């Protein structure tokens, strides 16, 4: 029963109609959910920072197919996609963004800090690069305890300029621990383009310099991402060695809601939008007659309903009493 969205499929099923439709459904689900989030943000239901994944869905959905329930995930602050693809309930994510105590972190984390224990989702981390050492440590524990499982660590191209990236690469390689580093290279560290951030813009070279096996893949192609992920994940678990996967992708929306996008040309955005992973897959499936308009409509309806439920759930949620403000600073004795 644990296998919902985002858990591993048998490789044989990779190209089945059902699986392809499922990939499309998952990406669309993230896209629609986040569009709604943007609206709710403008409506002031959601506050704080809201970083949307629009355009990058293929990365989370593709990689997540290769992960087992026992694997761990360390994500970034742009992690709604990962959280949904991993199977965390949309209701609790939405309630979290509303700040309600029914949220997955009781409204203490918000958009940038989604956590879930059952799915081993070790959070969105709002410090760029901050999650990397954590992932190395989780994998180190697995190694020490002889558990054949991996930790999947998402990071952006911006994180690769941080010291913590280099420290973590070195530690992962030195200790030979099972981490799958997934770089979502969306070309911009907030508003600073890759070429203004990195002396060497060929990012996999950085992993190579630490002696870490690596690959680069088109992050706008969910099938390509899944294929590599399916191939490397069992090897990581088996050998216990780290792997670095760069997914080239693009964020269609602004860095966060309050971003006038002064740093890039509209034409560039439009050009990338032509490669929208959802449109691409839809097109493919239609051409291969693996999906009909009626199927698409049904998927949209399903998602629409789920989102409406999530909003209703979040709206109906309650504010944690202020008397509980100082809880969860230190562990409470278990009852």
């Amino acid at each position, binding site marked *: 029963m644990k296998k919902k969205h985002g858990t591993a499929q048998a490789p044989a099923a990779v190209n089945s109609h059902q699986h392809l439709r499922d990939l499309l459904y998952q990406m669309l689900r993230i896209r629609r959910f986040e569009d709604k989030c943007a609206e709710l943000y403008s*409506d002031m239901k959601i506050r704080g920072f809201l970083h949307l994944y629009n355009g990058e869905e293929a990365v989370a959905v593709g990689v997540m197919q290769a992960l087992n329930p026992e694997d761990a995930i360390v994500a970034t602050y742009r992690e709604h996609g990962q959280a949904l693809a991993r199977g965390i309930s949309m209701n609790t994510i939405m309630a979290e963004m509303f700040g309600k105590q029914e949220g997955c972190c009781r409204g203490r984390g918000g958009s940038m800090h989604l956590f879930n224990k059952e799915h081993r989702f070790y959070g969105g981390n709002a410090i760029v690069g901050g999650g990397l050492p954590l992932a190395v440590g989780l994998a180190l524990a697995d190694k020490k305890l002889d558990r054949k499982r991996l930790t999947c660590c998402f990071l952006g191209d911006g994180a690769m300029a941080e010291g913590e990236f280099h420290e973590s690469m070195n530690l992962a390689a030195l200790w030979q621990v099972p981490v799958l580093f997934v770089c979502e290279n969306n070309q911009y560290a907030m508003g600073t383009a890759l070429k203004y951030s990195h002396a060497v813009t060929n990012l996999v070279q950085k992993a190579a310099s630490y002696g870490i096996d690596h690959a680069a893949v088109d992050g706008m192609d969910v099938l390509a991402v899944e294929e590599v992920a399916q191939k490397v994940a069992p090897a990581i678990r088996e050998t216990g060695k780290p792997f670095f996967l760069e997914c080239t992708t693009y964020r269609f929306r602004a860095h966060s809601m309050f971003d006038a996008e*002064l740093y890039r040309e509209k034409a560039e955005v439009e050009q990338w939008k032509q490669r929208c992973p959802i449109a691409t897959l839809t097109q493919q499936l239609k051409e291969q007659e693996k999906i009909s308009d009626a199927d698409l409509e049904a998927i949209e309806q399903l998602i629409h309903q789920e989102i409406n439920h999530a909003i209703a759930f979040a709206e109906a949620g309650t504010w944690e009493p202020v008397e509980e403000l100082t809880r969860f600073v230190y562990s409470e004795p278990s009852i």
Partner: protein
Amino acid sequence: MAEFRMPSLGADMRTGTLVAWKVKPGDHLKHGDIIADVETDKGIMEIEVFENCIVEELLLEPDTKVPVGTPMARLKLEDGVEKETIAVTDRETPSPPPAIESPTIPVPELPREERLRVSPLARKLAAELDVDLTQVKGAGADGAIHQMDVEEAAKKLQPAPKPAEKVVAPPPEAKSPEAKPTTTDFQAGMRRAIAAAMSRSNRDIPHYYLETRIDMSHALQWLEAENQKRSIKERILPVVLLIKAVAKALTDVPELNGYWIDDQLQVQEAIHIGFAISLRQGGLVTPAIHHADLKSLDELMAALRDLIERTRGGHLRSSELSDATITLTSLGDIGVEKVYGVIYPPQVALVGFGKIAEQPWAERGMLDVRPVLTATLAGDHRATDGIIGARFLQAINTHLQAVEKL
């Protein structure tokens, strides 16, 4: 019909300026289409609609700056759903602090008030001892007044009537108008207050006296064994057993726990035992051990310690001096065998304990030598009769024989 309003794109966005409309009335818009460019502090932002709709009317002219939530356009929703697109109602964007118009405000030259330099402790003490701080000379830095200065001043000054009266002051209902100290000595003031209360007692209260001997061998053996297990600091004094026995006896015989007011006995529910503490420099105070029946022996010992320390340090609270419901006097330490006490009005009883001394004790035809304590009761005959008093003394005895249950 729906209104399109100036959206909130960040908690720090308060207003937006319409730069240009990207649509005109009659245009069909899809979810995600850009309706306008809006200038914010962060630059020009493209503003999207979240529904499929038709533009009905544009309400703002370009270059207009409006607060977040202001209606900008009227839309007709195409999905046939009547819905408020943007509802900015329930939460306001936070306002920045108002700008300060005049950055420097001249500080008017105020006459400096002469303020005494007094330590917080000294100030508190002065209030308790009724010492006028303006009359105290501080020996601290720059004439600061400290605890010691106040204590010295208190000794020299006229005895303040209040603390003197507190010493034996009965509850507020009963006044002792006689207590008007005229001498310059605090002890003399206290003496006078005691004199007043005791004279009144002797004049108004028809005392009856009862006494009984109590075999203390079991109680003392038990206590000795108990104290053996403890460090010196945790040891319990025998008098604590007596206090607890009195408290428990009062729960058995409540008629002795109360006041004689308005010609009737008012039995009190709470048992506050006034414990007579003599001061080395002379005089006597009887602060109350509150709820003595509810306290364990350890708690009673702690309470006693606290009271004695504070009594001798002069830090008693007035309520402790006025709300005892019975008084206990133990003079055994000085070698007295029996105590015939004078009741503190408006209380109705006083229990006295002498010293615990080896005495011959006959039981079942056998003569033995045992540690014996003589307990006495002074009772107010207006409130109770001897039979009540006898029951009470018997109850004390019973509780002391079952000391492990105290």
